[in-house]
């Protein structure tokens, strides 16, 4: 008859949850992140003498999550882009749990970073880079489906990296069983940034679901805007987060183009600007030729008056 003390119960809990101390190649150090299905550790790659991030399946999750982790690794391998964290290796720990190794991102999460960026232009530049990475994934047939501040890291040199592709969908036929739902129908994703059709558990999820999330992120970033720019950005957010996905931007690059138009003072497709605002914008855009023409006309008038 086995007796298990309270201390032994705690040890068993900790030991069955903690991964083995490493592999032939990687030494595991502290935990740096945790999600629904996996735990990310800082690790040291002895073969290449560098720090990396190692994501391993949590111990008490099942075959479904294991398949998600493997799918995430394959998706990352298919997405080589400076805005998408790079995968380096896959394997299994001594206890059988699968893992993959990726670049250790040194930086901070988007929401923490922008706290220290009070002006609009650098915020919108980050957003542009984010849209670029997401559009790249969409072109490769991958939809992220969980874009939110904690999944976006800003590196030390301002690089934008999209993380956590655990519930991403890659090249799946419409109506097929979908990875944003677990077997018992639980919807994966994060409310507030999740498109309504995704929250409702629809299997017909496309790139416009990510456009919705980008719109929600833009809403956060645009909070410091004012005047015409604020009105235009609000219109862009409203279009990107429309409840009806057909009313949204159909591509991330279209959304990014409208945001760039705000920065450049050009026409924004989502914003029906009043005539005086349009006149003002055009006057500002063509201020140099207008100034030249005005100067020329003034000179002519002056000459005319002088010749009399």
């Amino acid at each position, binding site marked *: 008859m086995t*007796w298990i003390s309270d201390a032994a119960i705690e*040890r068993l809990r900790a030991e*069955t949850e903690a991964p*083995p101390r490493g592999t032939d190649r990687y030494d595991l150090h502290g935990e740096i992140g945790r999600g629904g299905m996996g735990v990310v550790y800082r690790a040291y790659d002895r073969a290449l003498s560098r720090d990396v991030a190692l994501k391993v*399946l949590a111990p*008490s999750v099942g075959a479904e999550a294991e398949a998600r982790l493997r799918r995430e690794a394959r998706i990352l391998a298919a997405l080589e882009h400076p805005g998408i964290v790079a995968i380096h290796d896959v394997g299994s*720990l001594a*206890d*059988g749990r699968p893992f993959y190794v990726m670049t250790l991102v040194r930086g901070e999460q988007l929401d923490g970073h922008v706290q220290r960026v009070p002006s609009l232009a650098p915020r919108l530049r980050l957003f542009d880079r984010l849209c670029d990475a997401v559009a790249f994934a969409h072109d490769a047939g991958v939809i992220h489906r969980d874009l939110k501040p904690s999944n976006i890291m800003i590196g030390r040199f301002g690089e934008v990296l999209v993380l956590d592709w655990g519930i991403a969908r890659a090249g799946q036929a419409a109506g097929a069983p979908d990875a944003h739902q677990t077997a018992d129908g639980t919807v994966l994703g994060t409310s507030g940034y999740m498109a309504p059709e995704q929250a409702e558990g629809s299997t017909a999820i496309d790139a416009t679901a990510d456009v919705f999330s980008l719109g929600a992120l833009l809403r956060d970033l645009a909070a410091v805007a004012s005047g015409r720019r604020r009105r235009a950005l609000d219109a862009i957010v409203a279009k990107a987060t429309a409840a009806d996905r057909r009313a949204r931007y159909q591509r991330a690059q279209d959304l990014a183009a409208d945001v760039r138009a705000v920065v450049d003072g050009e026409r924004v497709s989502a914003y029906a600007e009043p005539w005086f605002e349009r006149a003002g914008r055009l006057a500002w855009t063509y201020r140099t030729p207008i100034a030249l023409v005005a100067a020329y006309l003034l000179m002519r008038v002056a000459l005319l008056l002088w010749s009399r």
Partner: protein
Amino acid sequence: MSAGHPDAFPATRPSIVRAIRSADSTARERALDALTRAYWRPVYAYIRVRFGRTAEDAQDLTQEFFTRVLEHDSLAAYDPSRARFRTFLRVCLDRFLANEHRDEGRLKRGGSVRIEPLNLAAFDGELARHPIAVDNDPERWFHREWVRGLFAAAVDALAARAAHEQRDLALALFRRYDLDDDAGPERPSYAALARSFEVSVNDVTNQLAWARRTFRAIMLERLRELCDSDEEFRREARDLLGPGAA
């Protein structure tokens, strides 16, 4: 346990809670067996320690309780949306003990459920060697003893598996490193274990990994049996094995 995937969740199957209400007598019998296996330790400890009954009384009452649960179809009243199953079972146990006290001497002893008397006697010996403090919260107390029982049963099953697969070293290392309290809170290093067992550190790592993986798989399989839904299973798995559950 699903073949080929020792870490995987056991496949979904009708829980014992539902099977125990089944019209199929074989399914009901199997379910009662699983229910008894999972709960006899906390039930016995509850009667023996919290209610201070003698060993003989506690053994009889434990048998009688499970018999009544089956014969009187008490579990039909269980509503998963209102409480965890073990809370419901503890309330049934409280009611049973109150009635038993009132009808003392009139209850028939034993019945269709048989828990191995040797197990009860051995468990009683362990209770005597490891006194359990009684606190004021019966729910928390019953839960803790349920967890202890589940872990203990999983260790017993692991021992059987290790014997079958000739993994004596894995079991011995697991007992020394994870179960023994003799060394105090400081655990021996893997190197010290390797010297003590005259094996390599690598062997210690691999054998312990096997034991923990198998232990976890057994735990999850037992737990799955006891839960009425996948949601409840995940919640319980998170409670038992840490926050990384699905």
